[in-house]
């Protein structure tokens, strides 16, 4: 487990968020399985189907994926290149982690910003999506997810920074 991943469990906010996200993810997955199976059943048995199922399914995939990415953020489970492996000097490692966390927060904030701009456009000029719900409702997951990722990253950045400062103040106590 990375240091950031261990750190997140010390934050009450992140642990509670994690619990909510887990329930939502399960719900989305079950909904995807059931809706797709229902569609096959209707088509095979009644040779008909519900028109709204396919588009709703496609949005559920986006929702579950983006929400999964939100959960992956605090757990340190995002796919990343690890070319240097253990060859980074141990002394530098926490600083590099802090730097990448800073970058992550900024980049996610940038994506969130683009997401809100996009949503504003959708509210103004977008049409209707499946189930007669407006498209901005279905696409709203983009800014929401990226904002959550940015928020989580910023929180982790703060926690990492604090841990690092604490460590430097008491040089005798080497953390595990």
């Amino acid at each position: 487990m990375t240091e950031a991943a261990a750190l997140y469990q010390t934050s009450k906010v992140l642990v509670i968020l994690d619990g909510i996200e887990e329930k939502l993810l399960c719900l989305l997955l079950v909904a995807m399985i059931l809706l797709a199976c229902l569609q096959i059943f209707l088509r095979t048995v009644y040779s008909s189907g519900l028109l709204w199922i396919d588009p709703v399914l496609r949005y559920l995939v986006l929702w579950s994926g983006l929400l999964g990415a939100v959960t992956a953020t605090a757990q340190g489970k995002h796919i990343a290149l690890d070319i240097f492996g253990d060859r980074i000097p141990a002394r530098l490692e926490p600083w590099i982690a802090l730097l990448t966390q800073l970058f992550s927060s900024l980049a996610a904030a940038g994506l969130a910003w683009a997401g809100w701009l996009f949503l504003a456009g959708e509210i103004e000029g977008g049409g209707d999506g499946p189930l007669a719900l407006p498209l901005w409702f279905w696409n709203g997951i983009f800014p929401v997810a990226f904002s959550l990722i940015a928020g989580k990253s910023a929180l982790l950045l703060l926690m990492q920074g604090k841990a690092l400062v604490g460590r430097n103040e008491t040089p005798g106590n080497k953390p595990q």
Partner: protein
Amino acid sequence: MTTLKLLILTLALLRSPLFLVIGALALLSFYSAEIDISVVIIEMARLADSPLLVSLPLFIFVGILLSESKAPGRMLQFTRIFLGWLPGGLAVISLVVCAIFTAFTGASGITIFALGGLLLPALLEEGYQERFSMGLITSSGSLGLLFPPSLPLILFGVIAEARIDHLFLAGILPGTLMLLLLIGYAVIKSPVRLAKPAYSAKEILHGLRVIAWELPLPVILLGGIYGGLFVPGEAAAVTAFYVLAVELIVHRDIPLARLPAVMSKSMVLFGGILVIIATSMASTNYLIDQQVPVRLFEFIRGFIDNKYTFLLLLNIFLLIVGMMLDIFSALVLIVPIILPIAEGYGVEPIHLGIIFLTNLQIGYCTPPVGLNLFLASYRFERPIAELCYATLPFLGLLFLTLLVITYLPWLSMVLPRLLG
């Protein structure tokens, strides 16, 4: 701006999440081209038009569910009874079981963890050399990548907008060739057996009974798709529903209380892949807008006018990519750029997909970032260098298959043409 981009690329090498690196680069590129940055999200939202995408989360869930259940043990028991009489017995069994298991779990290294621990002691006990056994398990951790419904195949289909049912068919013969070559080697290397294992009728019946529920999986999946019952996306849902019922109700391998954890683990894995796909949609759009693939093609054509030379260089390039990147990032980043170039040289997208995945499969076993090497080293507590050495003969055979796959497009294309 260029300095900023270089800084971000450096951060990418220092374990920054890849999707944020790609996302940040896309944002900066559009911004500096004075295009509204909301384009980045508009490109991502196009993913909602892809009917194939739904098969990714569902097959990931199937794979994780199967690997958390006791299905690997049951598969092994079944194959031992029914294939144990073959020359090369256990080694052959290991290869076959690993290939099938990897196809269903998506080559994320689960095979080495789920089956390696069962297979290695069994192989050693039957008198196989340690080096051979380690090499076999390490390299077979990604064997089966070309068989349906492997995730990398689906992902290639999503990115290249190629037909998944054709890709599924295209992988079967190349995958079988690879498997047969490895089986041949295993037969040569297997120790002389004093007596062939004999099983009583009761044992055979028991072996059949325990696997009876999981055995029809490939039939349901492939029969459903090619029998015209459902499209690949729906096949994933049926498989997920079936596996869920079997592991939860019939075998009760996974208690209901553990299910939410398994589900959210699958969705977190999917989320990690989806955001990379999403951000790369935006960056790819920028590159295509700037005509990068076209210009790259023009540039390369200045040196190479021959399809076969191009394929050779493509292989070398992809082998290096396979060494550096994990399979999902490699697919998402490289396919959109290579695809138009390869098409320029007359390489069919489906054939390209099989070449691509074979290269990346070899990358699983090569340093410095071969996932199989790391997992095996972790699982068996051996140094990476030793495992590298152990996998060499297997890698040789994989290279041989790669050459055949590359220069004999027929092998990949014949099934989709006949049945697709």
